[in-house]
């Protein structure tokens, strides 16, 4: 486990956010399914060679956004999506990222409808692979 997390220290993205994003991505892609266990804080800290507080902080944020849930004594698990809370900060960050993609698209000479079509196409492909890959390691 945990091989799917790759951090870059000294990047402009704080390490705890890198972990939050990568765990989130793994869950979105269905590589981690509901009920799957995340590595223990100390184990992941050892593997990534980072301060355990950094991992703990990432897990706390993941828990606050409702992606994972912590059961005292037994660990951290991927939560049921039905129970996830609305994460306004996360949604605002997503909007910012979309803006930068739009800028790139326009600079490449694409029209609005091209960008929309491309986004729709990628989204459909993503959902398909996600359903295919679901529970592969569950």
């Amino acid at each position, binding site marked *: 486990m945990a091989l799917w997390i790759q951090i870059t*220290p000294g990047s402009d*993205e704080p390490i705890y956010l890198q972990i939050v994003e990568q765990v989130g991505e793994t869950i979105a892609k269905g590589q981690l399914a509901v009920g799957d266990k995340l590595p223990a804080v100390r184990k992941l800290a*050892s593997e990534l060679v980072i301060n355990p*507080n950094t991992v703990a902080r990432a897990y706390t944020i993941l828990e606050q956004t409702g992606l994972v849930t912590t059961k005292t004594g037994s660990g951290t698990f991927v939560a049921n999506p039905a129970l996830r809370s609305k994460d306004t900060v996360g949604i605002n960050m997503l909007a910012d990222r979309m803006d930068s993609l739009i800028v790139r698209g326009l600079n490449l000479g694409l029209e609005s409808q091209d960008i929309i079509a491309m986004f729709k196409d990628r989204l459909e492909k993503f959902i398909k692979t996600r359903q295919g890959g679901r529970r592969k390691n569950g």
Partner: protein
Amino acid sequence: MAEYVLEAQGLTKFYGSKPAVDHIDLKIPRGCVCGFVGRNGAGKTTAIKLMLGFLKPTAGSSRLLGCDSQNLTPAIRQRIGYAAEGHHLFRDATIGNLAGFHSAFFHKQLASAKQGEAGWDGKLFWDMIEYFGLSKKQKIKKLSNGQRAQVSLALTLAPNPELLIMDDPTLGLDAAIRRQFLEGMIELIMHQGRTILFSSHILGDIDRVADRIIVLDKGVIRANCTIEQFRTAVKKVRFVFGQSMPETVDIEGLLHSRRADKELEMVLVGTADEKIAEWAKSAGVEEYQIIKQNLEDQFIEYTAPIGQIRPFAWEAKQ
């Protein structure tokens, strides 16, 4: 148990008429990992030597584990691990000789040490030596710089120190050995209540293992806060003006600014995003951008010797 494992009050050292360390006030709580950063000649080594009682301060005082630095008892010293810059070891000794020499200062077995006493963990020492691919009979003078640093780390960690002070421990080490060194530090952090203060020029390493950052600049402490507080506080912003730029810049937290043509670049400390937006509106800014920076960029901007610099130090609110 002392709440703070390291405390300094007005700690000062003059070399001639020049202060190398200038009225340092510092409190390091138990269990934290502090990255001690500053440019060459900022006074890091002098500060460390003062705190360990190797140098006499011109003014002020400091305490380690609740005991005055100038009067550290052997019992207190046993609980402090110190790795000097450059990893100086007896060149004619073998690794086995050094282990014998160092362990003689401690209880032979960790288990036989009473509460609050330090004991030599021989198993930990030899496990580390084996992990580093070294052996008992090797002579120090035949080792590479990296291997000497590894022996030094094993000697420093074997007594299981409560407080570990390391002066630029990864200086001159290659990337792989540096990583092993950091792994050793992480393992130590996992032990409850262990506190580490280490200086380094590699901000990426500080980002990895530390939870606090202490910035020393020309002998003065300019920041002592969590890494996250530092990362959130230091901001670089680029403003683009449609027409004329204001003559003077008056914004809370301004550290320094650079002007070029229709652009104005500012380094701000602790200025809220809303304040930046407000200022931009009032100054007639056409557009502006808060530039994402890594810890190293932020450190360089923060200690840059250009423009107006306001000494700045703040304690964590908690």
